[in-house]
């Protein structure tokens, strides 16, 4: 599929679903969270599945975006026009520093995963102990009774849906374009055999950093959106390791060899887990069902739903 067709198809599917659920606040909320987790999973997998860099600390970047917005607006009253770029800038800078450290000392595979996990956890505990960031209670952002578009405050949910859809489509578009360019080829080559790639002229450190910084920037963008949508951030929801693991789970279930695979994983699992949680009769029952579903999917479709679909399509 050409990159244009992938973007068109994703856009078409999103618009159809959006039209179908836009009349119902509950379903619209599920749709928004599906797009949010879908974007995160896609940009996480850009590193893990396409470049071979398994990060377990991606919540750090989501948190930088979310806390930039929450802190900026509640302490200084800054507009999203300031706080969103600030969050993304911080995340890109953090990824640059962490990446330089990890790649300089040749951390790969599990070691890279553990190093990123450590950075993420440090941020979690630092924020949980910082007075101005609301400690572990989190920060409630000021809410007015009327819509303030300049602060991205809307009573209706559809403006938020449009924003996160734009972010998701933009991420897929940028990702698809990159995968067809030199950068994408270099990423895949680095994932498979770094030594061979370097011998063929690939600057491994520079291209891994590029991937890490892009992925961190998009994660922060999602985090900034989350803060404006939910109007409340706390360390557990935007900095916890659970969030990083979610990106991994959606990617594995959706299919890690394709850019849009993780989106499929999120589209299946996010609504399913929200509905299960809201409708399960027994406390904790939803988690049992969810876990069984994950195990079954992992056993039946090891290449993920999207990977399975594409292999069926080709034969």
């Amino acid at each position: 599929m050409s990159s244009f067709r992938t973007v068109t198809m994703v856009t078409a599917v999103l618009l159809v679903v959006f039209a179908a659920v836009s009349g119902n606040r509950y379903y619209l909320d599920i749709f928004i969270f599906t797009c949010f987790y879908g974007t995160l999973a896609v940009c996480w997998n850009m590193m893990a599945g396409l470049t071979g860099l398994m990060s377990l600390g991606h919540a750090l970047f989501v948190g930088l975006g979310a806390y930039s917005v929450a802190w900026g607006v509640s302490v200084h009253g800054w507009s999203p026009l300031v706080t969103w770029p600030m969050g993304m800038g911080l995340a890109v800078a953090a990824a640059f520093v962490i990446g330089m450290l990890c790649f300089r000392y040749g951390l790969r595979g599990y070691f890279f995963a553990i190093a990123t996990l450590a950075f993420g956890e440090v941020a979690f505990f630092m924020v949980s102990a910082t007075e101005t960031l609301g400690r572990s209670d989190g920060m409630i952002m000021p809410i007015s009774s009327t819509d303030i578009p300049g602060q991205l405050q809307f009573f209706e949910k559809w403006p938020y849906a449009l924003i996160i859809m734009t972010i998701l489509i933009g991420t897929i578009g940028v990702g698809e374009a990159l995968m067809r360019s030199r950068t994408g080829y270099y990423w895949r080559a680095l994932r498979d055999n770094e030594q061979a790639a370097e011998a063929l002229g690939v600057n491994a450190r520079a291209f891994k950093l590029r991937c890490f910084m892009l992925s961190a920037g998009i994660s922060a963008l999602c985090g900034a959106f989350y803060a404006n949508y939910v109007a409340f951030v706390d360390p557990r929801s935007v900095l916890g390791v659970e969030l990083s693991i979610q990106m991994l789970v959606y990617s594995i279930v959706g299919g890690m060899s394709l850019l849009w695979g993780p989106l499929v994983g999120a589209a299946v699992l996010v609504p399913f887990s929200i509905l299960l949680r809201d409708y399960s009769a027994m406390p904790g029952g939803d988690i049992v069902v969810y876990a069984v579903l994950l195990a079954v999917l992992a056993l039946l479709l090891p290449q993920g739903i999207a990977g399975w679909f594409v292999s069926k399509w080709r034969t």
Partner: protein
Amino acid sequence: MTPLLEVQGLSKSFGGLHALSDVSFDVAAGEIFAVIGPNGAGKTTLFNCLAGAAAPTSGTIRLGGERIDGRAPHEICHRGLARTFQLVKPFRGMTVLENVKVAAFSRHPSAKQATTAAQAVLDRVGMAELAAVDAETLNVAQLRQLEIARALATQPQLLLLDEMLAGLTATESAAMCERIRQLPREGIAVIVVEHSIPVVTSLCSRAVVLCFGKVLRRGATREVIADPRVQEAYLGNAQT
């Protein structure tokens, strides 16, 4: 005239192990040069140092008069030195053409130009009909060809070939030798690491023999092979 590759006093130690000590030789443009020696003599370490995969402990390496020792592999590649690996691993989930494209991107940053260049290289090595094949389904001989195609797509002046004939049938290695013999005519000098003595004598004008990381002998291939010290070290002492 300055030689294309000039190696002087090259040493490489891993802790107390001297994998290479004081190795010197040079390779002229358009020459096919052999590095021979028994297993563990330091041939692969030498390749790693030349290609930048390992930094030499001391000594200098000059390519076209410029020092390349201690440079990163991708910089050395851009200066015109390409290598193949003993264990050939194609990039997963990529076709033959896409594998070569990765290499072609080093000279052609745009995807379109890289595709054209990669196709031209596949034509040159006679793999054009395999362009759309998934690289993981190739057989050993085809993988070796792909390895050469990838190296050629970086447009090298000097190509290091690490045991390209190992595991090939007689017909396949004859075809491979023919391919290697053409490279100087395309303006590419070659260094081969090879075990088969008949192949080395037929392909290479000059050779260097390594033994325990030291240069045992260097010079014209026939004279080098005939040296009793070389025969003893390399072939084992066959005479009783």
